[in-house]
Each structure stands twice: as C-alpha cells, then as structure tokens.
C-alpha cells in the first residue's frame, strides 16, 4: 500500500504547497502574515461553485474567474486594511490581528450567504472515476491538483527569478525604502502582490473544493494552520521553500498515518515543525528571515 500512500501524500502535499504559496509571497514582499488567506481561499471555492452552478460555466473558466474574484478580494483587503496600517507604520502585530478580523468577517459573511452546511460541485463537473493500476488508484482531481499546483508554482518562481517584475519584488522584500529610492513603484507592487497571492489562494480553494466535496465557510481555518506550518518550515517568504515544505508536510502526515497512528497525524507534522525550528530557526530554506532580522 506504500505506493498508494505516496500518491495520497503527493496530492495532499501539493494542496498545502499551493495554499502556502500566496501566503508566503505576501510575507516575503509585504512582510505581513495575512491571516485572511484562509478566508480568501474559502471564498475562491464558493466563487467557482456559484459560477458552475448558476452560470453553468465550464470548470476552467470558473476557476479563472474565481482566481480573479479572490484576487480582487485580496486587493480590497490590502487597500482597506493593510494600506492604512502601512501608512501609519503600525507594528508587525497590527496587520496580523487586523487580518484575523477580516477572516472572521468574511467567514460570517459566507455563513450568512451560503449557510453553514457544506456544499459540493455538481456531479459531473469533473470525471469521478479513478485510474487503476492493479491496486493503485489515482483520481482525475488528484492528478489535476498536482499538475496545476506545480504549474502555478513554476510560473511564480519563473516570474520571481527571471523577470524585471520579480527583481523589483525581491528588491522590495529586501528593503521597501531602498526600493522606493530606486524608483520602484512600491505601493503598486504591494497591491499586485496581494492580488496575486489571493488569486493563488482562490485557486487552491477551487482545487480543494473539487477534490474533497466539502466547501464550507469554515474550510479556511484548518488550512490556515497547515499554511502557517508550511511557510515557517519552508522559511518565511521563500517560494521554493513553501513548495518543498508543503510537500514535506503532506508526506509527513500521510506516512504518520500509514506507519505510526492516525491519532498522531497533526502532532507529527507540527512536531517536525518544532524540531526544525530548534535546529534551523529560519526554516529549511530560510534566508529572508535572517536578512530581515
């Protein structure tokens, strides 16, 4: 059953990685832990669901639209909540607490609009059957999650490493003041980052909604916990780190269930986090933190 467990781990890890990607991007560039990322992830899921259910959009289009919608939501959160705090040079804790508030408001709003019950994409939205090789079962969604997560991660990495935009973002991550003096439109790139991060969060929401049939107003919270673990594990603000740490957490959880006990699933994941923090406080790939410190 090991092969099956490795496939389970790969698809779970990809979801964690994809979720953590936007989360870590915002931290890297804005220096903010945006705790509304879970709520935006959840609303992305609902957005695609509404579009598929009511406008009968094909899934790929609904997913793009959901990414756009969550991106705009992220932009709004930045403009309305984070920007005033930036302007006031508020201490680091302020945006964190403020975004907890945003997450609570968005969750209540979703509950009011959609109810507390879990929803799912209509049957037939995606092929339901699984591909079988002997005892090995892989569903279309699992494949889709892994492929789409990797594509989005690689695109983001390429943008950060190979483009002028990426260079500007990395300059901001290094020092917003210096970047501003160099003529970089810091505020504009903050918005762009918030938009892109939220769009990635929305995409993760759609994929999770598709694969687990449980779109609820509360789905963001457990994911947020894993996301925090992943970005700390991977080194705050490090995109490659988030990818690897996400996969790592997925494998840790699944192998714990397979070889230790399902009771310890979360304990082992977070225990590893603790261990790594002891050994290497900046996370597995952390450099940004060291530079920032």
């Amino acid at each position, binding site marked *: *059953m090991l092969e*099956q*467990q490795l496939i*389970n*781990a790969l*698809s*779970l890890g990809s*979801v964690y990685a994809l979720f953590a990607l936007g989360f870590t991007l915002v931290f890297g560039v804005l220096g903010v832990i945006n705790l509304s990322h879970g709520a935006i992830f959840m609303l992305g899921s609902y957005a695609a669901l509404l579009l598929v259910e009511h406008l009968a959009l094909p899934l790929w289009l609904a997913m793009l639209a959901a990414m756009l919608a969550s991106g705009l939501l992220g932009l709004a959160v930045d403009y309305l909540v984070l920007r005033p705090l930036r302007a006031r040079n508020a201490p680091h804790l302020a945006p964190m607490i403020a975004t907890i508030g945003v997450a609570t408001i968005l969750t*209540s709003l979703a*509950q009011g609009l959609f*109810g*507390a*019950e*879990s929803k*799912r994409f209509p*049957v037939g939205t995606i092929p*339901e059957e*699984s591909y*079988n090789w002997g*005892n090995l*079962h892989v*569903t279309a969604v699992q494949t889709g999650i892994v492929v789409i997560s990797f594509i989005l991660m690689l695109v983001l990495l390429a943008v950060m490493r190979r483009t002028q935009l990426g260079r500007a973002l990395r300059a901001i991550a290094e020092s917003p003041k210096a970047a501003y003096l160099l003529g970089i439109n810091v505020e504009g790139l903050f918005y762009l980052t918030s938009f892109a991060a939220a769009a990635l969060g929305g995409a993760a929401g759609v994929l*999770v909604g598709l*694969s*687990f*049939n*449980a779109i*609820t107003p*509360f*789905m963001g*919270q*457990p994911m947020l916990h894993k996301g925090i673990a992943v970005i700390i594990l991977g080194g705050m603000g490090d995109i490659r780190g988030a990818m690897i740490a996400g996969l790592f957490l997925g494998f840790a*959880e*699944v192998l714990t*269930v*397979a070889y230790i*006990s*399902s*009771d310890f*699933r*979360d304990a082992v994941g977070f225990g590893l986090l603790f261990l790594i923090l002891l050994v290497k406080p900046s996370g597995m790939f952390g450099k940004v933190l060291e530079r920032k410190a």
Partner: protein
Amino acid sequence: MQLNTILKTLPLLMLAAGLCSAAHAADVKLGLAAALTGPAAKYGVAIKNGFSLAADEVNAAGGVNGNKLQLIIEDEQGKKEEAINVFKKLIFKDKALLVFGPTLSNSAFAADPIANAAKVVAFGTSNTADGITAMGPFTFRNSVMEADVLPVTTRAAVKHFGIKKVAIIYGNDDAFTKSGYDVFKATLANQKIPVTTTEAYAKGDVDFKAQLTKIKASNPDAIVCSCLTEEAANIILQTRALGMKQPFIGGNGLNSPKLFDIAKGAGDDTIMGSPWSSENLTPANKAFIAAYKAKFGSDPDQFAAQAYDALHVVAAALKNVKLTGAIDKDRIALQQALPSVTIEGATGKFAFRKAPPVTGKEVGYDAQQEAIVNIAKGGKFVLLK
C-alpha cells in the same frame, strides 16, 4: 408642569403595563439553547424547527391547560462558553421554566451543571454521549444513547452481510463521535467481532485517503464509522475512489438526507441505527413529516424529530403541573412531573428511564426507546428487514 403630566400619565402607564402582564401571565416560557450558527448549525437549525413546529401545534390546540407555550430561542453557536452564557441568560434573566439544549454533548457537559445548580430542568434532544445525565437530577434527554442503539445496529449488520471482521474510523476530537467510537469498540468486543485497524481523524479534515488506504490494506468486511454526516459522506466517497467496496456501519451521525446529497449512490448498503426514520410509517411520524414539510419546505431529520417530540413530552408533563407563578416551585414541579410522562411521538413510543447510578450523586433521566435499523438503498435509508 412636566412633572404634573408625568404624574397624570403614570397611573395610566401602570394600568397598561398591568394589563399587558395580565395578558402574558399565562405564557409558559421555555428556553431553547441551540447552535444556530457555526459548524453545528445544521443540527441546531433542524432542532429549532422541530421545536417551533411542535410549539405552534400545542398553541393552536389551545396550549396546555389554557397556557400558551412561549419559546425563547438563543444561539449558543455550538460552543461550550456560549452554551454557558445562554443557559445563564435563559435561567436567571428570562426566568424560563426549563431549558432545552444545548445542541452538542460537549456543550451539555459545560452548561448542564448550571441548570442543576439552579434547580432548572436541562432537557437535551441531541446529546447522546455517555454520562450526560449523570450530571444531576435536573438533566433529562430524549436523545437515545448510542449505547442502546449501536449493539442492535451492529448485530443486524453482521447478520445481513455475514461480516467476520471490521475496520473503524472515527473523529477523535469530538465528544459525540468519540463516545460513539467507545460504544462501537465495546460492542464489537462483546459480539466478538475482530477489528482489523482503528483510524482517527480530526475536525476539519477533508482528506481521509491516508487512513482509508490503511484500512484497505487491512481488508475488513465492513467499515464502522463514528462520524458526523458530512465527514461520513466524504469518507464513503473516498473509499470508492480507492476501489473499496465495503459497506459502512454507523450511528446517529449518519442519519441525515445530507449523507446522500454528497455521497449519492456510493452510500448504498450503509447500515445505520437510529430512534427515528422517515420510513417509519406510524400515524404520529407521518403527521410530523407532513407538517414539517408544509412549514419549512424541506424534509425533516432525526434532530428535528427529537426536538419535536421533546416539546410534546414537556407539554404532556405540564398538563399534570399546577403552575403557581412562583418560578422556583414551578421548575421543581415540572422536574417531578417529567419522569412519568410517556408519549407516542414521531420517534415512536417514548418513556424516561433513570440514568445509571453514580455514587454520591443524584442522576437524571435517559430515553427508553426502541432503535430502528435502516439500510441505504437508492440514495435513502429504508428499514432493514
């Protein structure tokens, strides 16, 4: 001048207030603490609907001994802390004659001691965990304990499918699913059915594939699931995606049309024991289902049925209580009248049974009711024959 006006108006106001309170004096205030928001809202809302429906019926028929029943409904959000707050409000501020709820067993363990200390009946309609009624003589429930239902269910499932060994999956951080697991474990040991592996998950988990892959490798004849509906539905779907065909055995948590909204036909052959079934065609149940559909436009579930019955149980008890208006006395009179009530409700014949004794402590009353064993066919539960 102004004072004069006030003085002139005052007697009039007092008279008006007097009249008002006279008109309301015959209202019997019953508190309901239910989880109307939050993850447990799906149960809490069904419970609220069941109570409103029954209260409307009783009032439409002239009330109890001429007194109208007035429900005071508060949202406890499925949280312990809120359940405590709501119980305090209903008992000390609203002076409710009794308090129904709270929705989750977790919350009942937190809030019921307050009612017992204040000598007010706390009447649970959905608390099935062990030990709820051990909290004190003012704790009552009409929710049938898993300990009564699951042995009957398991025996029926074993016979129906010829099961030799089972695997278990359950939520380990929820009082209801954990207590269901404990009962299943004891039941399987009693009935000498080996357990191939026991897997757990946590609240909020949506990916159960790791646990299910392990269960698959242990090759059981059936999977016992002490889960809430939505988790159960996803667990069933994910087993099918892993190429597993085993039937499921579950308790109260699976008893909801929601199971098939999500799992569709994949849920077929699931065996579930419950005190209530939509397929139980007694006149009382048929009338309940029809009235519920007419009022709320949707199918009732077990939680609505038990809430509905609970109000009729209390109405039956109130028939034998002479209300004096002294709230402390009336509360105790109601507590003394409740144990002897028997009704024929939506969930069938109902009576109370004194909870198992606890040394040095007075205990409350559990439900004495028959379990109905159902099997899922074509996306709904039918009676297992």
